[in-house]
C-alpha cells in the first residue's frame, strides 16, 4: 500500500511538472489518470520494492552525488586515453565480485559500472558481474571494491 501511495504521488508530481496548466478541471483529470495508471500497475503486480524502491530513502540521492563525481573523473580519464596519440588501451574482460544480497542492489551496481565511462557490465553471473574494462588500471580500481561497498550500504537491510 505504501508503494502504491508513493507511486501515485510520484506519477502525479510528474504529471504536474509536465503539464504546467493548473485549472481545477485539469488537476482533477490528472488525478483520475494517475489513479488509473496506479490501478493498472497494481493489477500487473509490478508495484513492489523492486519496481518502486522507496526503502532506499535518502541514501540513494547521496549515492547519486558520489556517482556523478566518479563519472566525471572517469570521463576525464577516457578523454585522455582517446586524445593521446598512441591509443593507450589494454582491454580486459573479467568477473568482478559483488556483495549485494538483493537483485535490486546488483542492478544498481551493474548500472553504475556501465554508467561510468571505461567500464561496462556485460553479464550478471552467480559469483559476480562480468565486466569489460578499457584499461587494466580501470579494472584494478573497480576490483578494490569502493563502489561495491557503497552500493551495498545503499541497499541496506532489505
Amino acid at each position, binding site marked *: 500500500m505504501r508503494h502504491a501511495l508513493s507511486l501515485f504521488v510520484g506519477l502525479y508530481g*510528474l504529471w504536474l*511538472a*509536465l503539464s*504546467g496548466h493548473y485549472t481545477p478541471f485539469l488537476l482533477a483529470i490528472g488525478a483520475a489518470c494517475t489513479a488509473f495508471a496506479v490501478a493498472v500497475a497494481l493489477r500487473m503486480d509490478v508495484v513492489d520494492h523492486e519496481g518502486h524502491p522507496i526503502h532506499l530513502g535518502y541514501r540513494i540521492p547521496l549515492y547519486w552525488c558520489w556517482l556523478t563525481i566518479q*563519472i*566525471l573523473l572517469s*570521463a576525464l580519464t*577516457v*578523454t585522455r*586515453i*582517446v*586524445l593521446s596519440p*598512441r*591509443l*593507450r*588501451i*589494454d*582491454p*580486459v*574482460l573479467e568477473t568482478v565480485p559483488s556483495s549485494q544480497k538483493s537483485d535490486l542492489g546488483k542492478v544498481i551496481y*551493474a*548500472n553504475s559500472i*556501465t*554508467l*561510468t*565511462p*571505461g*567500464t*561496462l*557490465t*556485460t*553479464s550478471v553471473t552467480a559469483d559476480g558481474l562480468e565486466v*569489460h574494462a*578499457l584499461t*587494466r588500471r580501470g579494472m584494478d580500481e573497480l576490483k578494490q571494491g569502493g563502489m561495491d561497498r557503497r552500493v551495498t550500504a545503499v541497499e541496506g537491510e532489505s
Partner: protein
Amino acid sequence: MIVDILSWISIGIGAAFILVGGLGLVRMPDVFTRLHASSVADTAGAGFILLGFMFQAGLSLTALKLVLIFVFLVFTAPTASHALAHAALLDGIRPWTRKPKDPAP
C-alpha cells in the same frame, strides 16, 4: 550576463566531451572499446549540455523538464550499452586485446 557565460562554458564543455566520444568511436578497435568511448558522450557530454540549457531556462518548469530528460537518459543509456555488449558477446565476438609482444603502456 553571468548566466549566459556559465551557460556557454557548460555547453562548450559538453560539446567537447561529445566530440571526444565521436573521436573515440572512430579510433577504438572493436565494439566493446567503442562503447566505452560513446559512454563519455552519453553521460558527461549530454549532462553538461543539459546543464547549460538549464542556466538559460532559469528556475522554471522548463528546467525541471531538462532534469527529467537527464534522469531518463541516465537510466536508459547503461541499459542500451549493456544490451549491445551482451548481444555482441553472445554472438561470439571476442573482445580485442593487446598482443603479448606489444606490452601494455
